[in-house]
């Protein structure tokens, strides 16, 4: 077959055309640039459908990102506040120094304990003095005996809601020598219950959203592919490999995903700063003071990566359903 080709070329009128041309696409970057150029040309030719795809991806990511932003901030608040879920166990009598270690070990063995600190009568008194600095007169006549020794206990994050705290306290009361247990404010516990619920909802909603978005994006991309059905068919008929046909679409999907992600991040930043700027006037609090934060660079990168992945997988699945060449 090679012979017939050489023969037929020899007879072509212009010898220039018969020289076998260099393959510009040989090598990874040559091919990549060809496919990218093709992808860009496709984007330009189907501006409307491409914009729909980008908008879909961007909207989906924006919803996800808003959710993430709220979550990250609530989590930040929760971490700060729930440190207040601290349990203090008071002793009738100050335990002997040797017994303290044993007591701490016993308490630590109760599930949910994060840390245990022993506060002796002495320390309790010096804390009190520190707190009443400048009003020492109030403390005249008070000696260390008045204040009881105690254990300050912090709980794991998962054990900071009502139910877990109640359980924990019940277990704590069984420890010998503990006479009274005090624990953090009720609302903090309720908030933590809410946070646990929110995390669960987030997980469910997140997975649901991902599936839905993938479905929508894949179908939107299918529109762009459908618009070029003839082209795919023709490429295949003139001998294009499946990879050659698919590559521009995959690159197109990646570009659309990245563009969608960037747009969603811009919109997110817009929402965030608009909120920060205006919240003061209608909420009556300064949001900056409340410790609100924007997403971390890692989160932003994850959203960008998510967009790229979304575009890529969307293209891939819709191509698979389309091309059986």
């Amino acid at each position, binding site marked *: 077959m090679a012979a017939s080709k050489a023969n037929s070329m020899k007879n*072509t009128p212009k010898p220039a055309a018969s020289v076998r*041309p260099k*393959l*510009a696409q040989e090598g990874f970057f040559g091919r990549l640039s060809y496919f990218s150029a093709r992808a860009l040309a496709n984007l330009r030719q189907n501006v409307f459908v491409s914009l729909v795809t980008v908008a879909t991806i961007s909207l989906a990511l924006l919803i996800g990102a808003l959710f993430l932003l709220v979550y990250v901030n609530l989590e930040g608040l929760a971490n700060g506040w729930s440190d207040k879920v601290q349990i203090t166990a008071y002793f009738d009598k100050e335990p002997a120094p040797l017994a303290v270690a044993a007591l701490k070990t016993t308490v630590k063995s109760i599930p949910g304990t994060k840390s245990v600190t022993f506060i002796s009568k002495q320390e309790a008194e010096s804390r009190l003095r520190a707190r009443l600095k400048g009003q020492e007169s109030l403390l005249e006549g008070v000696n260390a005996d008045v204040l009881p020794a105690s254990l300050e206990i912090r709980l794991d994050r998962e054990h900071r809601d009502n139910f877990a705290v109640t359980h924990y306290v019940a277990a704590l009361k069984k420890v010998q020598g503990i006479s009274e247990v005090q624990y953090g404010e009720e609302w903090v516990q309720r908030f933590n219950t809410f946070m646990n619920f929110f995390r669960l909802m987030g997980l469910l909603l997140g997975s649901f959203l991902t599936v839905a978005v993938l479905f929508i994006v894949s179908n939107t991309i299918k529109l762009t592919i459908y618009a070029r059905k*003839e082209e795919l068919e023709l*490429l295949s*008929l*003139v*001998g294009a490999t499946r990879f050659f046909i698919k590559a521009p679409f995959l690159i197109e999907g990646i570009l659309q995903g990245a563009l969608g992600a960037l747009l969603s991040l811009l919109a997110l930043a817009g929402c965030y700063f608009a909120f920060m700027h205006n919240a003061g006037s209608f909420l009556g609090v300064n949001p900056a003071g409340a410790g609100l934060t924007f997403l971390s660079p890692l989160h932003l990168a994850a959203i960008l990566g998510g967009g790229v992945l979304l575009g890529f997988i969307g293209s891939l699945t819709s191509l698979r359903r389309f091309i059986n060449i």
Partner: protein
Amino acid sequence: MIQLHNVGMSYQPEVAALSDINLKIPKGDFVFLTGQSGAGKSTLLKLLYAELTPSRGQVLIDGQNLTRLSRSQIPLVRRSIGVVFQDYKLLPNRTVLENVAITLEVLGWGQRDIGKKVFHILKRMGLESKLNSTPLRLSGGEQQRVALARALVNDPKILIADEPTGNLDEENKEAILNFFKEANNRGTTVVVATHDRRVIENSHRRVIRLDKGRIVDQGEPSLPGEESAEVPDGSVQG
């Protein structure tokens, strides 16, 4: 060399579009495939470039059995076959130049070489003033020539044309047929499906006649040299 052994093709069960096709077309031959509308001409051609796989039998191109090729091998076979489709299949949103370039892009040629080669063939076809038009702005004859340029730009071993003279006037028909002859003179095997009796009669080539999916006349293998005396042809062998 194109060979078909006991080929049968059914689009739907029980309805045969082709049956018992045995056919041999030697390398460098020029044959017409004829028969009434619905006789199976397009179906037979589609089997040759593997757009369809036969329901029964074997199709061999240069000894390669198309029915046994994997999906990744089929593109390689198609690259050595130029096809002018019955409906042209020109891409409406690309220029004439880009439409013809597709054949070479698929092969991985560089832009500059593609440009040269494509310009050269379009010039030969008298289309150099239409390089940047889109196909929809061309006349039927011009579209036909673009489709032919796309099929020939790669100097294929085999040229397949399905009803290439469909709606053309006599002058255009003549021009198209001359391009086929030129390609044939350069060693390309040419297979043309047509029901245009005048085209067939003027050419004095082998004619394969189909009727209701069966070959009713294998035709005489054409005698090289004989026909070129009858039809005026600028580029005779040499």
